[in-house]
């Protein structure tokens, strides 16, 4: 059952972790709990842990070399036992080999498994060197991270008194030592081995992938919106990924000290940027805190340079410790903010920070501070701090964006309501204004009609009445005057008809009205009126003025000209943008110089000026009259 559980944990670790930061943290916690259980409980029927042995300084691998041996217990944490350099462990396999014939008879293989050792190690069985992990005295290489599984060949073993020697070389800047050594069935140990190996490699790999993805997304966003917090976010992620990468494969391409220094520097930079980001996200604009973080950030390259000129990593280690302490103190900021301004986004960030702190403190406690030798076998979880932080920041961001979106929707709704209210108000005003304009137009029109009635028909009827009363009227004159009065009335009604501002229709309608009178007088009318476009701008009062003007011309011809033939020409000159109407008769004519003010000529000229038209009247006694009106027109 326990094995199934651990297998499931292993599969989850390998396949799903890269896609799930939360998964990493959960699995790590599960692993932490599982690892805390005594290994013997679930391994009692299988492999045996070797915990008792002897230790001697120097390389004592060969059976011939016999140094002074001291008894020791495994795991041996050199950070606790204060060992450096090279030491040889001697372990007795004698009792364990007793079931060997049964094992080999069943076709099963035996194996030795060392979960953690280092930096480097050589394995001797019964005086023969069977495996070496890096060179003896290999200070500049670290194999301590990955577990080691050694398949035991039957030829290595004797029936009795088997002896195992492990020559271990350590490094002062790293966690060195030797974990418990397991001996037993290969299949059982292989499972333990690969589970741990996946865990040691898979966790940091997942963290690298996730942080790089997040940083890339952040950088893309920075390109579009130059947002300082996003800068911090992206750079912190990048530095953390670099730190993981260096810790994982750095010592394969550079010296162990350099890799160590780089990993520390990257970690410091990443942590300090995370601190700055934290302040931004919480809205804390403290110059003091920012100053402290920025100063420390400036110190990082300086200490790196210090290392570069050959002074070792000591200063960097101290800088690292200082940064960690600073951030631990900085943890009070989100607490304080959450206390003062509680909210889901702040709480999420606080939870993330607390998780990071818990991970960092537990690592520090187990690996360095506790003094427990068992701490040596603990797998550091520091890598996953980044995942925790990213998760909390992302969750906080998500909540903020969600909130902003909701606000935007609400804002949009409010805006739409406002716009629709404004539109209604505008429409109301427009209606009122339209009504006002309409009433004004009606009033103007009414005034014009009254004026026309008064000046035209009214005065004519009054004149007619007085003449009739005086009794000096012939039947023909009376008929003529009444006809004229009816014409006046019809013309006035015509101005109320919808002519649509069409000049040709206006002329046409005038002729239509006068047709019977013209016919009676016996005029020959030569009518040539082309379409006269561009009259759209002519309003009713302009049309009325034009109608009066033309009526005056026809009236003069009928009354005074004694003509036989009237020629009416209406032409449109697109080039000059005018409409020209020319009315010519072959009557007796008159002398314009002598008769300048009579016959309504002054009135006609006045109307023409008001219309902005050009009126030209040419006449000579005995040679007829020519009246020409040029009216500018808009675009056709």
């Amino acid at each position, binding site marked *: 059952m326990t094995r199934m559980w651990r297998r499931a944990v292993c599969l989850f670790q390998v396949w799903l972790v890269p896609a799930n930061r939360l998964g990493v943290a959960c699995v790590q916690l599960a692993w932490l709990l599982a690892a805390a259980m005594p290994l013997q409980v679930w391994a009692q029927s299988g492999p045996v842990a070797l915990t008792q042995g002897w230790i001697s300084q120097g390389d004592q691998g060969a059976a011939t070399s016999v140094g002074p041996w001291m008894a020791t217990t495994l795991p041996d944490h050199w950070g606790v036992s204060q060992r450096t350099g090279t030491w040889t462990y001697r372990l007795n396999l004698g009792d364990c080999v007793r079931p060997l014939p049964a094992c080999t008879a069943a076709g099963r293989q035996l194996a030795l498994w060392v979960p953690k050792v280092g930096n480097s190690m050589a394995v001797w069985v019964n005086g023969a060197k069977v495996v070496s992990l890096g060179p003896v005295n290999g200070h500049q290489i670290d194999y301590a991270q990955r577990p080691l599984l050694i398949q035991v060949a039957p030829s290595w073993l004797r029936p009795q008194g088997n002896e195992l020697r492990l020559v271990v070389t350590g490094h002062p800047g790293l966690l060195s030592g030797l974990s418990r050594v397991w001996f037993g069935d290969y299949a059982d140990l292989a499972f333990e081995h690969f589970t741990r190996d996946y865990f040691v490699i898979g966790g940091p790999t997942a963290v690298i992938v996730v942080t790089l993805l997040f940083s890339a997304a952040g950088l893309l966003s920075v390109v579009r919106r130059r947002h300082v917090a996003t800068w911090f976010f992206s750079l912190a992620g990048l530095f953390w990924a670099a730190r993981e990468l260096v810790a994982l494969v750095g010592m394969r391409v550079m010296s162990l000290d350099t890799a160590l220094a780089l990993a520390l520097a990257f970690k410091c930079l990443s942590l300090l940027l995370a601190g700055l980001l934290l302040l931004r996200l919480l809205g804390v604009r403290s110059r003091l805190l920012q100053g402290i973080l920025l100063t420390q950030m400036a110190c990082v390259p300086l200490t790196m340079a210090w290392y570069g000129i050959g002074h070792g990593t000591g200063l960097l280690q101290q800088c690292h410790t200082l940064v960690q302490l600073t951030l631990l103190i900085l943890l009070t900021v989100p607490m304080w903010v959450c206390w003062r301004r509680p909210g889901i986004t702040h709480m999420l960030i606080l939870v993330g920070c607390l998780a990071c702190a818990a991970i960092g403190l537990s690592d520090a406690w187990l690996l360095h501070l506790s003094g427990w030798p068992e701490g040596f076998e603990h797998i550091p979880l520091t890598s996953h701090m980044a995942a925790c932080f990213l998760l909390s920041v992302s969750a906080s961001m998500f909540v903020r964006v969600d909130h902003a979106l909701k606000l935007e929707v609400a804002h949009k709704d409010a805006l739409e309501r406002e716009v629709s209210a404004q539109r209604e108000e505008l429409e109301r005003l427009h209606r009122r204004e339209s009504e006002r304009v309409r009433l004004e137009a009606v009033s103007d029109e009414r005034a014009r009609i009254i004026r026309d009635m008064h000046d035209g028909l009214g005065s004519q009827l009054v004149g007619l009445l007085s003449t009739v009363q005086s009794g000096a009227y012939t039947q023909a004159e009376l008929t003529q005057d009444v006809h004229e009065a009816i014409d006046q009335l019809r013309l006035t009604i015509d101005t109320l008809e919808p002519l649509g501002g069409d000049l040709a*229709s206006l002329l046409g309608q005038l002729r239509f009205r006068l047709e019977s009178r013209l016919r009676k007088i016996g005029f020959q009318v030569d009518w040539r009126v082309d379409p006269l476009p561009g009259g759209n701008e002519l309003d009713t009062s302009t049309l009325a003025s034009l109608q009066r003007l033309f009526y005056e011309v026809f009236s003069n011809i009928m009354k005074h000209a004694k003509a036989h033939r009237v020629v009416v020409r209406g032409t449109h000159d697109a080039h000059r943008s005018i409409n020209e109407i020319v009315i010519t008769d072959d009557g007796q004519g008159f002398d314009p110089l002598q008769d300048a003010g009579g016959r309504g000529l002054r009135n006609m000229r006045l109307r023409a000026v008001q219309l902005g038209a050009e009126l030209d009247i040419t006449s000579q006694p005995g040679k007829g009259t020519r009246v020409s009106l040029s009216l500018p027109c808009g675009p056709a």
Partner: protein
Amino acid sequence: MKHKVALVEDDDRVRRSFARAMAQSDDITLWFESDSVTGAIEWMRECRDENWPDTWLVDLGLPDGSGLTVIEQAIRQHPDTQVMVVSTFGDEAKVLDSIAAGASGYILKGEGDDEILAHIQDLRRGGTPMSPVIARQVLHRMRSMHLRQPPVREPAPLDAGLHLTEREVDALQLIARGYSYDDVAQQLGMSTNTVRYHVKNIYNKLGVHSKIDAVHEARRRSLILLD
């Protein structure tokens, strides 16, 4: 057989003037006259088919209602009846409404007796005046591309499918610019009678809607009677 004319007009003098004018004519007789809508409608109800006048002359402003009622009733009873509006001033809007109701044209009163007679003679020949304003409005209703003026009045709720021939449109355009029927005939190379014929056709087309309705109504009634 004389052409029978019915006259619905409330002004005595006008009625007398029409009677005088028609008395001078050999082939026109004033068959019936009334001074009110009610009188005319009642007479129509009693009237036998063989006594039905060939032409109705109807004034629009009658003391007990609108002449439109008379026009509609006449068209309903005899869809092929010729109805003319008698108008003092050729008030275009009213004329168009009455044409939509089924009238075939209008004649102007207030000229002289001789003018009225000329009108009636015209009528006999199938002619009826058309003013430039009416021509223009008909063109506008066609939504013809020839005219670019904006709408001047809401079109009456009819003749959505008014379709005029090219010659009719040509004639209308000239009439709208003030050309007389003779001028139009000369311009378009046709006889004046042809122009009159076109104008009459245009009026008929404008009123065809109400006439079709009238035919349907008549059929429906006869069907009901048959039941």
